[in-house]
C-alpha cells in the first residue's frame, strides 16, 4: 500500500511539552492500540497537540472510555440506547433504581470486558453491590451508572465499524451460565450480515461518538435495536474468527486513506 509502518510500544514513550515532541519520531499518523484507556487518552491528547493525527482521535477515545460520555453522545446523535441513570453518589442509587425498575444493570464508568458489570435483580442485591463499590478506592467507582435491563435473546451484536462502513458484524452469544455477552466472558461469535436499517444505525452510532475505527455493540429489544456501547480501541479476535473479511485489512485501508487526505 506504499506506506511504512512501525510498531511502537506506548510504554516506552516520553512527551516533552517544551520540545513539543516525543523521545522518538512517530510519523505522519498513529493508530493507537493501547490496552489502557488512560494511556490511550494521554497519548492521543499529546499527539494532537503537536499536529500528529491519530486514530481514534482524542475526543473519540475519551468519549468511548467513559460509559456516561458514550451514552450522552449516543443520545445527542439520536441513537436508540438503553435508558441510563447516573447517581453522583451512593445516596442517589435507590431512587435511580426505583425509577428504572428491577432488575437493573450496574456498570463501572470506566472498564471493559464486562468487568464489574452486574445485574441487580432486587434492592437487596443492589445494596450489597453499592456497599462493595463504596469500599473501592477509585473515586470513579463512587459514581453510579445504572441502566435498564433490556430483555433480549442471549446474544448481542458486535460490529466493527471502520469509517462509514461496517467491516464485520457478529452475534456474540453468552456462554453457559453467563448473561453478559463479552468474548472476554466466554461468549462465542457467529457471523451475520446486518440488514439495511441496522447497518445504517451501526454506522450512525459510530459517527455519533466521532467516527473512526470502532466496536459498536447493539441489542435486539422488543422495541427495536438499541446501541449500548461503542468501543474506542476495538478488539476483534472473536469477530475475526467468525467472518471471512480481513478486519485488519479494512482498518489499514482506512488508515491509508485517512493519512493521504
Amino acid at each position, binding site marked *: 500500500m506504499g506506506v511504512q509502518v512501525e510498531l511502537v510500544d506506548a510504554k516506552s514513550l516520553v512527551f516533552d511539552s517544551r520540545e513539543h515532541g516525543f523521545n522518538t519520531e512517530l510519523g505522519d499518523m498513529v493508530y493507537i492500540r493501547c490496552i489502557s484507556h488512560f494511556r490511550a487518552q494521554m497519548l492521543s491528547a499529546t499527539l494532537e497537540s503537536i499536529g500528529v493525527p491519530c486514530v481514534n482521535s482524542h475526543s473519540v477515545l475519551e468519549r468511548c472510555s467513559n460509559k456516561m460520555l458514550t451514552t450522552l453522545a449516543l443520545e445527542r446523535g439520536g441513537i436508540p440506547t438503553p435508558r441510563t441513570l447516573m447517581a453522583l453518589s451512593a445516596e442517589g442509587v435507590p431512587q435511580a433504581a426505583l425509577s428504572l425498575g428491577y432488575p437493573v444493570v450496574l456498570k463501572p464508568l470506566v472498564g*471493559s470486558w464486562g468487568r464489574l458489570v452486574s445485574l441487580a435483580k432486587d434492592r437487596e442485591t443492589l445494596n450489597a453491590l453499592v456497599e462493595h463499590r463504596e469500599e473501592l478506592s*477509585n473515586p470513579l467507582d463512587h459514581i453510579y451508572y445504572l441502566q435498564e435491563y433490556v430483555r433480549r435473546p442471549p446474544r448481542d451484536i458486535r460490529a466493527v465499524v471502520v469509517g462509514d462502513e461496517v467491516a464485520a458484524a457478529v452475534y456474540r452469544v453468552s456462554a453457559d451460565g453467563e448473561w453478559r455477552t463479552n468474548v472476554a466472558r466466554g461468549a462465542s461469535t457467529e457471523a451475520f450480515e446486518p440488514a439495511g436499517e441496522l447497518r445504517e444505525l451501526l454506522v450512525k452510532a459510530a459517527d455519533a461518538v466521532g467516527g473512526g475505527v470502532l466496536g459498536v455493540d447493539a441489542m435486539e429489544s422488543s422495541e427495536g435495536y438499541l446501541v449500548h456501547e461503542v468501543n474506542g480501541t476495538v478488539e476483534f479476535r472473536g469477530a475475526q474468527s467468525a467472518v471471512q473479511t480481513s478486519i485488519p485489512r479494512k482498518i489499514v485501508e482506512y488508515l491509508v486513506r485517512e493519512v493521504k487526505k
Partner: protein
Amino acid sequence: MEAVCSECEAKIIVPDDAIVGEIVECAECGTEYEVAAITEVGVTLKKAEAVKEDWGE
C-alpha cells in the same frame, strides 16, 4: 525460541514469529511475560503488566 520462567523455571516456548511487545505465557504456572527484545542471541522476556482497572477496548 526458548526462555526460562523466572517463577517456576519451566521452559517457555516463544513462537519464532513473535514480535517485541507480544505476550507469552508460561505453560506450567501461567505467569505472563512480555517479549522485551529479540536478538541473535535469543529472546528476552519481562513480566507482563497485570490487568488494570482501565484496561479494555
